[in-house]
């Protein structure tokens, strides 16, 4: 018994020593499984999607035909029938509008949280922002359909104030409100981090040099916090580009976004769906390049 545990311990020590002497072996043992899993599943899937976008689909059997062509992209970027171009443009436009709205909503809150709130209030605000972020996204969208409906709380409140009914439900306006709502915490957190990192001495120096609040904000706070806004905008922009649940639940007849087209074609016309899903990939590639230029990665 004694000898057995002894030899077991000996073996363990030899194994640890072997790993300790060969760091590359430890590295391989740690890094190969997760990276291999990711490359085999995720990267290969992205590759399959890219390949599918250059194939075509048999209209009757919905089987993929493995012949290479640009026909899917020609259909998307067609000047004769601009349906898909219009949808792509609407999506990018919506993503931009949501991003700007969220930046405007988030900035004062983040500033208040980081610089004016006391420690207790700050952690309370932190929880108040985090919990909606993590609570079910589907449920939060659904809740807006009830809020905006003709007999919902919004119209009840407006009527109570003596105002007429609104008919926001199932419009692009509803989509704009809901998108801005669901992605807002994604903007608040990076902006908060950025405001928190602005040294108080900079603001004091600016005041000593005679700058008033507005000038300090424009020349000191904004340039330092801007990379944080860009970091947050990556999320608000990207998530809007790829969403189809919000248009499905709160959008109207003219509210189709890229995501809806991709989802609806994914079963019947996989090649086209894959090609259209490449559009947000392209847009995000451009966006991330610009974000990198603006310092969203380095400054934070």
């Amino acid at each position, binding site marked *: 018994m004694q000898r057995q545990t002894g030899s077991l311990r000996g073996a363990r020590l030899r194994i640890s020593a072997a790993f300790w002497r060969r760091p590359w072996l430890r*590295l391989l043992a740690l890094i190969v499984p997760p990276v291999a899993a990711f490359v085999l599943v995720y990267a290969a899937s992205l590759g399959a999607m890219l390949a599918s976008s250059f194939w075509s689909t048999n209209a009757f059997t919905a089987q993929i035909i493995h012949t290479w062509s640009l026909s899917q992209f020609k259909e998307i970027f067609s000047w004769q029938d601009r349906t898909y171009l219009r949808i792509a443009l609407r999506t990018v436009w919506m993503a931009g509008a949501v991003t700007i709205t969220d930046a405007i909503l988030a900035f*004062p809150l983040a500033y208040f949280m980081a*610089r004016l709130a006391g420690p207790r209030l700050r952690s309370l605000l932190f929880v108040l922002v985090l919990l909606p972020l993590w*609570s079910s996204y589907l449920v939060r969208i659904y809740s807006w359909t009830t809020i905006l409906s003709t007999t919902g709380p919004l119209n009840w409140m407006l009527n109570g104030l003596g105002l007429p009914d609104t008919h926001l439900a199932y419009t692009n306006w509803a989509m704009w409100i809901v998108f801005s709502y669901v992605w807002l915490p994604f903007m608040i957190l990076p902006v908060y981090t950025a405001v928190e990192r602005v040294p108080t001495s900079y603001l004091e120096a600016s005041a000593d040099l005679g700058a008033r609040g507005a000038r*300090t904000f424009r020349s000191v706070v904004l340039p330092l916090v801007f990379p944080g806004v860009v970091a947050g905008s990556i999320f608000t922009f990207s998530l809007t580009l790829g969403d189809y649940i919000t248009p499905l639940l709160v959008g109207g007849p003219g509210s189709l976004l890229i995501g809806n087209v991709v989802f609806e074609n994914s079963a019947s016309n*996989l090649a086209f769906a894959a090609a259209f899903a490449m559009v947000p990939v392209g847009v995000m590639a451009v966006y991330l390049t610009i974000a990198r230029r603006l310092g969203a990665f380095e400054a934070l």
Partner: protein
Amino acid sequence: METRRTRVGLAVWTGLVVVFLWIPLVVIALYAFNRSQIQSWPISHWTFHWFSVAFHDSQVRSALWLSIRVGLLATLVALLLGTMAAFGVHRFRFFGRESISLLFLLPIALPGIITGMALNSAFSFAGVHLTMWTIVIGHATFCVVVVYNNVVARLRRTSPSLLEASMDLGADGWQTFRFVTWPLLSTALVAGGLLAFALSFDEVIVTTFTAGGTTLPIYILNNLRQGQQLPIVNVIAFTVILLTVVPVWVSQRLTSAGEGPAVSRAAAVTAQTE
């Protein structure tokens, strides 16, 4: 530095935005207790009736059970892969190290339809039928980064000299892991695991592309699209909010600043590139 007017203005703005963030959650919580089948405001009669209806509904039960199984399996995979990758990236300098962080981040930074569509194309290409396991694969890909971020953040805070001291005192690799590394990491792992579970439990978009079966969010979505069973959907919605909020709250308590829920989701980009 800020004038009094600015301070008051900022405080009011903050209050309004917080109200904006919470109103939908409050509204849905109230509707769960609405006796009427029709959703109209204000609610005139209150009841617990729909909770028992939902609880005894066999479709709801099987959807809940599938969501729980998928969540647990995806969390397990994410814990294993995320922890290994975090150790590898934290302890070593090697070629392509930065690309690894980016690779893990992609599924959560790229729009959901891209991850979903990519997996869908791959399964279709490989002739894989959509089952529970395809959902697990889909969820695990975007859950890994959550665990990875939490573990990396915790490793950054622990001093490597602790491990060297343990080795100097004669501990082997296993003992060092068991008595030094594990106690330091356990709360980060629990926090990361809870967050991964919450993320998986409420995921819709990737799930619709990879689903063999109805998870709870898919059940909600199907009924919402057809405008059916709304009282039951309200009850489930309320329950789902509780089931995702509780793990997040616990994970927030388990982690210190610079880790946990904040890092895992919105600040993922910033944490990655530090």
